[in-house]
């Protein structure tokens, strides 16, 4: 181009020159002055300069613009390069090339790079968006669509992209981890809930409502995870607690089973619990194994077995008590002496005393008693022998009293033999008692305690028995002496009167009195009296009757009524009195017969021989029965009798109320008018109570007033 340029240039110069030459010529022709020529040349030069200058200016401007454009483009390109992290290699800058060409070259490059940049930006945006979403998820912030994603456009390098990608990966990992964690927690909670028998859905919904949704997005925020962890913690604590409780209960169960030999069927139900007695926490996985119900069931079973044990204990204690009582009875020991505290069933049931303690005590006592029983054995045997001998003795006594014993009859010889044997036994009794006493004293000395037989000191019993025996002996002697005397008396009488009382009578006398004495211990006084009075009885007893001969009938009748036992009709009393009167001539023996039954009548009084009248009453009492009830209303017959008895003994005084008013001369002075109670009619108990509010009356007042009105 420069060549072309230079040609063109030369031509132009030539042209100009020629033109100038022409101009010169013209001017010469015209005759213009040199000065004007100079000025016109200057003008033409200046004008030409201007045009050139303008064109140069334009060209300069163009050149500047181009340069500027290129610079801008280059700047942008380098920008992009830097931002994209590539070295800004200006490889397209061709030295020697013109600017337009340069620009032409740069533009597409720029375009290209711009495109690349946009691409890169998009990539970044994508990653950053994801990152943001994930971090939102992780932080638990709700996603907000339309949030402008911030991308740092200054650093779009691949390295940065790599960084972002790795960040994204991390977050993804994190999210997956957290999801796994949450799932893991949920699984744990699920298993815990199964074991504890709790509702899984309810539990996790309490933590976060969305967790229940299987398909929905799970919240994986820290708080959620923390809450899940806390829930797991609490559930595990609960599980541990229940596990310990159930293990304790299970061990108690095993104890009870062992103690009471529970049958296998009963054990079967709780095997699932007892087999886990040494298990650790993770081994408890069976559903509902640790549920509230399950634990309650085991608790109930334990308490049931406990009660069973206590009742069995009580049974055992009772058995022991019975055994102890039995032993004591057999060895004739008294239990109260052994046991000081109250080992009664009531004390045990009220829980005041532990059955185990009682059991121990009883065992102790039993062994003590056993040991003592062994040492007592010998003496007890001797006591048995002695008691048997006493029985034989009493049989012998009885036999001796039987007067018919020598009469020949069926088996009489056997009885005679028996009596002989009995006599030998009886003779040995003193020696037996002596030996027994010696043995007992020795035993007492050895043991340092008294030998008690059924609560009483054996030695005292033996002493009493010996003294009693001696008394009997002396009594027997006395009897024999008396008999002798009596025999002498009879003999004297015979000598005086020349007759002997019939032997049968005397025999009866002899037989009768001892029986009365023996069988009627309570009334021994009476019996003895009978015995002593025996000889004189027939005569002395009827003396008072004979004395009061004249008024006998009446007095008896009055006694009858006056005793107030029963109110007999007039006829009845005369009957009785008749009987009484007839009694007088009876024989002595018969009289005694009459009296002995009378003495024994249950409701009769003690015989008081001092007052013969009382004795008569006694007889009448024996016949006392309640005849037809006739109310003690006024009887016309009585008042006359009353008049007679004015001066008699108190027993001869009449009787029931109604008779007296008719004879009383002075009216009864009552503090209260009798009329008032009378108007009230039939007195029911309630009415009497009512009267309490008005004026109250006692029954006696009412009755007295009633009869007065």
């Amino acid at each position, binding site marked *: 181009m420069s060549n072309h340029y230079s040609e063109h240039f030369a031509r132009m110069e030539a042209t100009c020159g020629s033109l100038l030459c022409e101009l010169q010529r013209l001017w010469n022709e015209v005759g213009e002055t040199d000065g004007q020529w100079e000025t016109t040349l200057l003008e033409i030069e200046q004008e030409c300069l201007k045009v050139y200058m303008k064109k140069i200016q334009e060209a300069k401007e163009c050149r500047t613009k181009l340069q500027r454009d290129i610079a801008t483009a280059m700047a942008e390109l380098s920008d992009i390069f830097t931002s994209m992290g590539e070295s800004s290699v200006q490889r397209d800058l061709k030295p020697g090339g013109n600017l337009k060409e340069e620009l032409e070259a740069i533009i597409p490059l720029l375009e290209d790079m711009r495109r690349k940049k946009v691409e890169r930006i998009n990539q970044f945006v994508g990653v950053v968006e994801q990152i943001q979403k994930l971090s939102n998820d992780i932080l638990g912030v709700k996603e907000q669509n339309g949030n402008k994603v911030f991308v740092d456009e200054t650093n779009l390098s691949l390295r940065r992209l790599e960084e972002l990608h790795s960040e994204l990966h991390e977050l993804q990992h994190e999210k997956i981890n957290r999801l796994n964690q949450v799932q893991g927690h949920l699984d744990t909670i699920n298993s815990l809930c199964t074991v504890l028998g709790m509702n899984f859905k309810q539990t996790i919904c309490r933590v976060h409502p969305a967790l229940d949704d299987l398909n929905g997005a799970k919240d994986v925020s820290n708080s959620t995870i923390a809450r899940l962890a806390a829930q797991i913690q609490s559930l595990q604590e609960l599980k541990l607690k229940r596990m310990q409780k159930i293990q304790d209960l299970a061990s108690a169960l095993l104890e009870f089973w062992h103690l009471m030999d529970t049958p296998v069927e009963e054990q079967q139900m709780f095997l699932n619990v007892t087999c886990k007695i040494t298990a650790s926490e993770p081994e408890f996985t069976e559903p509902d194994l640790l549920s509230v119900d399950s634990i309650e069931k085991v608790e109930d079973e334990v308490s049931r077995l406990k009660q069973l044990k206590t009742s069995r204990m009580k049974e055992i204690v009772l058995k022991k008590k019975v055994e102890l009582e039995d032993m004591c009875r057999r060895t004739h020991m008294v239990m109260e002496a052994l046991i000081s505290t109250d080992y009664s069933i009531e004390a045990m049931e009220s829980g005041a005393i532990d059955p185990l303690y009682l059991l121990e005590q009883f065992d102790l006592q039993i062994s003590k008693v056993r040991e003592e029983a062994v040492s007592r054995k010998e003496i007890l045997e001797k006591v048995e022998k002695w008691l048997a001998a006493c029985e034989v003795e009493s049989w012998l006594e009885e036999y001796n009293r039987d007067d018919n014993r020598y009469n020949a009859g069926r088996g009489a010889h056997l009885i005679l033999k028996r009596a002989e044997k009995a006599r030998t036994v009886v003779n040995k009794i003193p020696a037996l008692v002596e030996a027994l006493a010696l043995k007992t004293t020795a035993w007492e000395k050895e043991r340092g305690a008294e030998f008690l037989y059924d609560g009483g000191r054996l030695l005292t019993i033996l002493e009493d028995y010996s003294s009693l025996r001696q008394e009997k002996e002396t009594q027997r002697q006395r009897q024999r002496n008396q008999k002798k005397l009596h025999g002498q008396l009879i003999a004297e009488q015979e000598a005086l009167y020349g007759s002997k009382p019939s032997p049968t009578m005397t025999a009866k006398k002899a037989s009768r009195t001892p029986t009365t004495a023996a069988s009627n211990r309570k009334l021994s006084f009476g019996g003895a009296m009978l015995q002593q009075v025996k000889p004189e009885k027939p005569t002395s007893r009827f003396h008072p009757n004979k004395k009061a001969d004249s008024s006998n009938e009446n007095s008896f009748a009055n006694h009858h009524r006056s005793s107030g036992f029963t109110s007999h009709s007039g006829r009845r009393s005369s009957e009785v009195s008749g009987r009484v009167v007839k009694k007088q001539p009876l024989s002595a023996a018969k009289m005694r017969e009459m009296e002995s039954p009378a003495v024994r009548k249950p409701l009769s009084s003690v015989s008081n021989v001092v007052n013969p009248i009382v004795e008569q009453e006694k007889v009448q009492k024996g016949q006392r029965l309640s005849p037809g009830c006739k109310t003690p209303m006024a009887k016309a017959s009585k008042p006359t009798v009353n008049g007679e008895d004015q001066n008699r003994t108190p027993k001869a005084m009449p009787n029931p109320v109604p008779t007296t008013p008719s004879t009383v*001369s002075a009216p009864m002075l009552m503090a209260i008018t009798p009329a008032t109670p009378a108007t009230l009619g039939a007195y029911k108990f309630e009415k009497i109570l009512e009267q309490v509010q008005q004026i109250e009356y006692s029954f006696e007042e009412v009755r007295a007033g009633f009869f007065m009105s």
Partner: protein
Amino acid sequence: MHGGPVLDCCFHDDSSGFSASADNKVRRIMFSLGKEEILGRHDASVRCIEYSYAAGQVITGSWDKTLKCWDPRGASGQERTLVGTYPQPERVYSLSLVGNRLVVATAGRHVNVYDLRNMSQPEQRRESSLKYQTRCVRCYPNGTGYALSSVEGRVAMEFFDLSEASQAKKYAFKCHRKSEAGRDIVYPVNAIAFHPVYGTFATGGCDGFVNVWDGNNKKRLYQYSKYPTSVAALSFSRDGRLLAVASSYTFEEGDKAHEPDAIFVRSVNEIEVKPKPK
């Protein structure tokens, strides 16, 4: 001869006693001689009579609302024998002696406790703790208190000592009742008698039963079989081996047909009257 019903009597010694009659007179009765003499008079029926060995006096309570003390050693005639007259708030229904103490129960549920050595005024003026009419009052043989029975089948056990400790021991119990168709039929308890040896006591009621009670252990010891009609009076013999039971209709239901009167004397078994501590 008595001019009216004999409402009460008591022993002086083995040969004599005293009687209180509805003819207003107090008599001394000599058993052996078969004689009697009038000791004094009241203005109305003499309801109860006791002889005090400590004071050597006869004490009578009457429906004329007075209590009179008589000296039996004085010659007959009211002026010489009457020792004192003591007004009561109401008609006297029952009285009992132990040692130097006298308990008087009157109508209107009054109870007066006297010291025989100073009769000018009662030692204690009390009211029966039962809500119904008093039937009988008897002192404990040990002299610490008295038993009081009412017409409502109840007996109250009271104590003389007014200290809190003693009053805390007092109680009342229901007795002589019959349960029929869900309701209780109550009978008056007419008589109380203390066993001289054991201190337990028997009560007799209009239901015809005699019950023996242990007041200390609050238990009934025995119940004798039913008597033909109401038990009007009870008395133990001095040695406590016999119990006399008066079976006689006491007119609690007015005038009606009834069993004949009878006195039963029964022997007393130790097991029926001996206290049984728990």
